């Protein structure tokens, strides 16, 4: 694996970094969508987060990263009973990917050369318990998107083809990035992402200069650069781990839940997924910041991330959806 730009060295882009950290703390949040201009460091941030995440324990040789030997699906046996530490899987879903490659399929090489019917696990298997990253998600073909939505919802990948019937767990955090100029995302897919962030180039000249300076010194000597930021990265990793542990004891008062509901009602978001995500995200943020319970301030800060992609388009309102959320937050929460 090539050298990865350290997460802590990313200049600015606080919303994007926050969204990614929250998804790392609570994988059930449902993934992050990063939409923005070219050259704003979308892919860099995703890869940096991957390198930052703590390793997972998995059964040796298991293609779906099962935690214990009894979770290993039947078709993948025999595997040993030993477990090993693996880096959190972060699987790239390339754009031209075929359906077979995503879900896994009959191993055509074995079928053709040895006449054996063997299941070859796909990208969904590899991303179980980890991340599935789609760059340029808005350009992904529709039938692949449908397939991903289906699996993301059920957490199980079911392959029924060419006389093969295979199922295996596929629980992953979906991270998508894209450039709205290339085309929009279907609302169904938009809604599947827990958090969404709009990124743009920083306006401040000094910030821009700093971005390029760091990039330059990273490319000149990656090893030294990574070593310099290692301590900061470890601090973040520890905070993520602490927050994961603290998540269960972080409570939300009835009043905060009411605020969530009021906020969503005033914005007219569809369904209840908005409220649930908002609450989950605020809880993750509270845990990350070491608070025992969710405060209004947490709610306020995650509201644009959790809600801005769930709004209906209003033809008479030309302002961006995140500013509409901010406005609604001010109106409802005071």
């Amino acid at each position, binding site marked *: 694996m090539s050298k990865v730009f350290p997460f802590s060295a990313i200049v600015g882009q606080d919303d994007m970094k926050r969204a990614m950290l929250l998804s790392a703390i609570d994988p059930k949040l449902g993934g992050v969508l990063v939409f923005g*201009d*070219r*050259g*704003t*460091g979308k*892919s860099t941030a995703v890869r940096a987060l991957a390198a930052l995440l703590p390793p997972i324990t998995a059964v040796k040789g298991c293609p779906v990263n099962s935690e214990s030997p009894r979770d290993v699906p039947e078709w993948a046996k025999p595997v040993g009973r030993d477990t090993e530490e693996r880096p959190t899987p972060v699987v790239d879903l*390339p*754009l*031209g990917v*075929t359906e077979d490659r995503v879900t896994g399929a*009959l191993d*055509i*090489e074995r079928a*053709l*050369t040895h*006449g054996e019917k063997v299941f070859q696990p796909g990208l969904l298997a590899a991303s179980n318990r980890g991340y599935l990253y789609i*760059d*340029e998600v*808005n*350009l992904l*073909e*529709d*039938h692949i998107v449908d397939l991903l939505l289906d699996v993301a919802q059920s957490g199980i990948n079911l392959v029924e083809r*060419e006389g093969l019937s295979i199922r295996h767990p596929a629980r992953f955090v979906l991270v998508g990035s894209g*450039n709205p*100029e*290339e*085309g*929009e995302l*279907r*609302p*169904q897919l938009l809604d599947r992402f827990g958090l969404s962030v709009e990124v*743009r*180039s*920083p*306006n*401040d*000249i*000094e*910030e*821009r*200069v700093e*971005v*390029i*300076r760091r*990039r*330059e010194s990273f*490319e*000149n000597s990656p090893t030294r650069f990574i070593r310099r930021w290692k301590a900061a990265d470890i601090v973040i990793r520890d905070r993520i781990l602490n927050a994961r542990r603290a998540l269960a004891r972080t409570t939300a008062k009835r009043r905060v839940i009411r605020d969530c509901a009021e906020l969503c009602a005033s914005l007219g978001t569809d369904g209840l997924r908005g409220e649930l995500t908002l609450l989950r995200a605020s809880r993750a943020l509270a845990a990350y910041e070491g608070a025992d319970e969710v405060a209004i301030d947490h709610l306020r800060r995650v509201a644009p991330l959790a809600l801005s992609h769930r709004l209906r*388009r209003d*033809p*008479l309102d*030309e302002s961006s959806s995140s500013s509409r959320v901010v406005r609604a937050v001010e109106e409802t929460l005071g």
Partner: protein
Amino acid sequence: MSRDVARSWANACLALNLLAVDPVGLRGVALRARSGPVRDVFLDLLSREIQTVRIHPAMSREALFGGLDIAATLSAGRIMRTSGLMAGNDACLLLAMAERCGAELAAEMAQCLERGGRRMVLLDEGAEPGETAPRALMERLALHVCLDEIGRQQAQMPETPRIDEARLRLADITATDDALRRLVVLAARLGVDSLRAPYLALKAAKANAALRLGWRVEDEDIAVGAGLVLAPRATVIPEPPDDPNPGDHHPESREGGAEDSRPQGPPDEILVEAVRPQLPGNLIDGLRDGGHARVAKGAGVGRKHRSNRRGRPLPSRPGRPGGDARVDLAATLRTAAPWQGLRGRDGSVKVLPSDIRLKRYEEKSDRLLIFAVDASGSAAMARLGDAKGAVEILLSRAYASRDHVALIAFRGNRADLLLPPTRSLLQAKRRLTALPGGGGTPLATGLRAAGDLALQARGQGLTPILVLLTDGRANVALDGSGNRAKAREHTTAVARCLAGEGLPCVVLDTGNRPQAVLADLARILAAQYLPLPRADSATLGKTIFQTIRDGLDA
């Protein structure tokens, strides 16, 4: 003029030398030129320093990105893979006809570039200003060169500088913070948002310093970086710094760098002047259109692709596996089965390349015609009957091309979806005939309903086209109040919004006399305007289908 031409040829040659010095950092050249002797000279120069491999947007995925070579695997009896031209070897990729490269392929290539550190030269032969190589690739290649105005006479072979020596010192070239800051400031002033641009400009400046065998980046190097990397990406014409209101572009940039950038004011101005001749010539045209030309184009690409669904499966047919074709395993085995006796009966099934059958799909027409019909009292008085006739003509044309249709009627204070998107033309006709008239004209409401339906349909992979039939006398606002001024204002707002979405649209004026208001509305919508009184059925059909075709090609 000739001096300008000489200079742009010199710049083109300089770009090549810079690429030869720092191929990894600069990534490549986006070359805009028609094929011809000048381009040949340029490419000769390129291949003098760097080994090149030509690729083409129509090449199969296996050829580009590698994959299993099924035919070779079958005949060899063991697994054979093709490595793909994008992966593996070290040569520079020449992408011919880059302007024909779709957004998906471009994104995939861009990912490949990022991963593999490949170099690439885009040969962009676009004729129209809007026809360019994909931006995802342009963005990643540092040097943008245009050879359009250079004649064969000017394109002389320059002498080769000492590339090897320059390469050796490249790693040791230093740049001051000040040099970096100046490039960043200039990028902001030229309206270049991406941070890759100033970063690549710095690389170009360093390569230039190495090329002239210096040790640090000087003013002339910065000017080269700015000229070859930043200027071609400019989206705004830089304003003089003493302008109290520097546009809406990065107002904070000035405050942020105020202390540092003020003493450098004059050299920055020199820099701006230096890049001015290299600003793209069509910049002003782009600005006149409100600067949205690029955005609209991008949306068009996405829409076109989304309208291709998988379609109905057809019988499979013989063919070589490759590209996007999928092997129909069952049919392939069926084909192979009868020959097994001849091929030697040893327990295994023998499949030869000639047995392979590929799956095929029939793609359907994915257009959706949304008719938004004004059924208000005023329209009913005028020509609701004629409007119905016009829609019927369109329906019969839609039937011929298997389009979907939807019908929205607006009157009183509401808009009703009389017919959700369907292919049942008969139903459309029935609902239309039964359409009653009367009440006010809630044009904004009707337009919004139609727009919502269109966006929804687009999300489902259809290509919506809006056909608005009205007499334009809007007198009911969005909130249902009968306020003529407010109604007008709301209509304009909704129309702007729809225009921003880039929906193809036709406005049919059903009034007795053509309404100026409606012509204005059509202009806002960027729609074709057609007064019904003058249009006979033939022109009507022709105009609308012309619009539809444009909508699809956009």
